[in-house]
């Protein structure tokens, strides 16, 4: 039976556990075994919490026996290593936090645990979520289960690879400029980034506070909906978390898409998009049209400014957010500092990798006296224009569709020398972060045996619409069910 358990989606596992076909302990053992077997190749995990997972699974089984099963009772998930987990290392993919053990749980971690989820481990990621290939991790790159020579994308690359290789049924991720959706697209998984403020950021180590949002990587839209229902909701510990009712996302999936107005952004299909990806996305749009949705062209005139805007705002915020890593209270501290300045310089110099340093320096620069107006203030104004573009577009359509990523998974090492090319990976995803909108990437085909993602963006708190659209597309296709051969 073990051979099959890992192939079941979260929803199917929930049903199987509910019917008593297998126990949470059995399921956890099976997946821990797979992690043991495969993670040497993938490097998707920073920490595997086998012992705690088995204890949690036992508690889940006991709870079920006592008739007290939560909605996620016994379901095996993994957390991106950016979420603080009490008593377990939380590294954020950095040497700076190599030995950091959080004294508290993030709200997301707390809510999923309360619902009965079993956490198998913490997944690898680009250092402090800064990267699109998982190559900036201090713990080495994650390998794409579809081709171990290739990147799974980033920054939630460990989560995406773990789910794609069936090492866990689902994973948490965070998305600042595409860090959930791009790796989901590159690994053939479903990646959901909710509306900014939908899920609490408390306990999620901050990269760019006004853009960061927690979300999920899963095997199906239904699974993503199930997890979001648990993660979403107001948290008094996060002032930017919005008090907005949490709907029944699973129930929203099945409403018809007939009459749904889908907007297509002409600029999305301009130069830079791989021809194979473009074809797959167009085909996916045709499927939705055949299901009764209508396709309309919409204009996002300032979209070409989203990458430069993002690379001012995000580094600015990160330069300040990462100041707390100073070697004084926690994290890496340089040995035998000569004085305070030496303590700061060496602790940070040794603790942070090149990409993090690059962004801290860029951010420090754009906030400096004499440059603030020209960069940061200007970027905030452009950000408002981009948000306005989306608002206008959503007066005409319900969802905006396009590619998630300009290319399928690229080779590890291909883009590491050129940060600008790397940054352009997020060209389609960044807009949703700048405007704070919900967005999802769902598998929509293959190019040269590598998965391609369809990107759907909704208006504020339009998660139901985005999920419904993705779910209907999934019902008509089999792309999301594809599994890399080595992990069947």
């Amino acid at each position, binding site marked *: 039976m073990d051979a099959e358990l890992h192939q079941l989606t979260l929803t199917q596992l929930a049903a199987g556990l509910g019917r008593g076909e297998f126990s949470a302990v059995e399921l956890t053992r099976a997946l821990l075994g797979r992690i043991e077997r495969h993670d040497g190749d993938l490097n998707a995990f920073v920490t595997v919490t086998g012992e705690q997972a088995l204890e949690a699974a036992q508690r889940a089984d006991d709870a079920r026996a006592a008739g007290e099963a939560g909605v996620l009772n016994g379901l095996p998930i993994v957390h991106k290593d950016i*979420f*603080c987990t009490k008593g377990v290392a*939380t590294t*954020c993919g950095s040497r700076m*936090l190599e030995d*950091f053990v*959080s*004294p*508290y749980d*993030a709200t997301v971690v707390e809510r999923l645990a309360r619902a009965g989820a079993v956490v198998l481990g913490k997944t690898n990621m680009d250092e402090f979520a800064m990267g699109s290939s998982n190559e900036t991790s201090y713990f080495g790159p994650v390998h794409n289960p579809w081709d171990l020579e290739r990147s799974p994308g980033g920054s939630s690359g460990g989560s995406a690879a773990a789910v794609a290789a069936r090492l866990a049924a689902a994973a948490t991720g965070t998305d600042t400029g595409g860090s959930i959706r791009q790796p989901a697209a590159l690994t053939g998984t479903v990646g959901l980034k909710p509306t900014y403020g939908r899920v609490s*950021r*408390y*306990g*999620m*180590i*901050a990269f*760019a*506070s*006004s853009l960061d949002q927690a979300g999920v990587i899963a095997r199906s839209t239904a699974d993503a909906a199930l997890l979001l229902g648990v993660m979403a909701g107001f948290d*008094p*510990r*996060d*002032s*930017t978390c919005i008090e907005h009712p949490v709907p029944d996302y699973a129930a929203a999936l099945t409403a018809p898409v007939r009459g749904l107005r889908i907007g297509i952004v002409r600029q999305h299909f301009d130069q830079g998009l791989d021809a194979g990806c473009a074809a797959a996305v167009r085909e996916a749009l045709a499927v939705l049209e055949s299901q009764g949705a209508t396709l309309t062209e919409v204009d996002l005139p300032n979209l070409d400014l989203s990458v430069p805007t993002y690379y001012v705002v995000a580094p*600015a*915020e990160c*330069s*300040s957010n*990462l*100041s*707390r*890593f*100073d070697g*004084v*209270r*926690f*994290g890496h501290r340089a040995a035998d500092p000569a004085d*305070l300045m030496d303590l*700061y310089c060496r602790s940070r110099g040794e603790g942070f990798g090149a990409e993090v340093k690059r962004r801290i320096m860029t951010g*420090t620069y754009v*906030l*400096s*006296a004499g440059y*603030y107006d020209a960069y*940061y203030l200007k970027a905030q104004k452009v950000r408002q224009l981009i948000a306005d573009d989306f608002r206008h577009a959503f007066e005409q359509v319900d969802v905006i569709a396009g590619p998630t990523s300009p290319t399928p998974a690229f080779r590890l090492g291909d883009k590491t020398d050129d940060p600008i090319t790397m940054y352009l990976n997020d060209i389609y995803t960044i807009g949703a972060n700048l405007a704070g909108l919900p967005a999802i990437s769902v598998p929509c085909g293959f190019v040269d045996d590598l998965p391609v993602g369809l990107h759907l963006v909704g208006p504020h708190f339009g998660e139901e619409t985005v999920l419904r659209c993705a779910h209907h597309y999934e019902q008509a296709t089999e792309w999301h069910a594809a599994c890399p051969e080595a992990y069947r």
Partner: protein
Amino acid sequence: MSAADWEAVIGLEIHTQLATKSKIFSGAATAYGAEPNTQACLVDLGYPGVLPVLNAEVVRMACLFGLAIDASIARRSVFARKNYFYPDLPKGYQISQYELPIVERGELWIEGDDGEDKRIGITRAHLEEDAGKSLHEGLQRFSGIDLNRAGTPLIEIVSEPDLRSAREAAAYMRKIHTLVRYLGISDGNMQEGSFRCDANVSVRRRGETALGTRAEIKNLNSFRFVEKAINYEIERQIELLEDGASVVQETRLYDAAKDETRGMRSKEEANDYRYFPDPDLLPVVIDDEFVESLRGSLPELPDAKRRRLVDDYGIRGEDAAIIASNRALADYFEAAARATGAAAQLVANWVTGDLAAALNRDGLDIEASRIGAADLAGLIERIDDATISGKIAKEVFEAMWAGEGSADAIIDARGLRQITDSGAIEAIVDAVIAANPSQVAEYRAGKDKLIGYFVGQVMKETGGKANPAQVNAILRQKLSP
């Protein structure tokens, strides 16, 4: 040139700790004096992943202050990050307000150097969190960091450069100090650092309108130090300029032991704070209804109270000023004045005199006075109805302070009732006259000053209990030839 040819231009930045129970962005307690790092939660420690949540009470307090200085209350204000590295600054930035503070354009009136009322403009008042404290004493080769104070709410009150002397600066600071305690938004405790200020000082030739280069004196925590430091700084700058040198714009520290200001190393101040709006906090939005409800809850303010005390009770202006400088003291005065039919000025004399001295001697606040307002009124009644003399009253007051009971009980127990029976006084006067024939002769020969001697003798005979006015009148009558 002399000092009289120069004019000082001074502006103050006063940091006032707000009297909230918990910190501005966390639930940790703000109480003073706890063991190091026992009142710092993960938010105060700047742990990875934690987020600030604004304490609503600080917004109420800041608005109350804004209303009290006739300022404009921003309907939308924004918290910003002030970025710099320091070991007692856990996040590497201080959350403050920069471009959009909560209070703007207020004013306060002080007595200017010319004795006239003078308006001091208040540019702004903004909310911010305090940093922790570095400890060096008793530690070798390393420093200690106490983060108990990190995240304590402060309101920084920035004046216009309207002050022209150290005296005016101290008067302004006192006035703000009185005001924040009146409003109940700060305990104003200067020893504990709840009320401190930075002074921006420059000088210019009298008649000039352009400002001179200023120096900023940091962290002055007493009225006396403010006055002394500014005076030192004014003299220093005048001397420099008269010698043909120039003032360097810099941050200076006041050394109270040497009574001088000293420049800080330039390295410590060469900071570009890279302010930007804090993305973890929403703008603070306030509606008119909230402001109006606060306006309704404003207590009577010190200036209005001072004027009313003069108008309603007819007491001297300077006494009214002292009494109105402390809300609880004013309440005490009014309660005592209302409880007696005696002249309110007599009550004011006692409150600002013996009572103030006794409180001061025992280091007590008026709230902890050992004699209640009604009891003090009881004592004053006995002076007013001539049961005791003012001199005996001092003895009774001390006994009351020592807890021996009410004025009446003490007067009875000690037999201090004043002798007002003119027959009894006459008998004693006669005896004194009879016993001092030579002095009587001298007096009658024109040595008027001897009246004091006779009064003294009569008082000695009566143990101080004879009514002095009566004694005087009877003596003069009987001694006249």
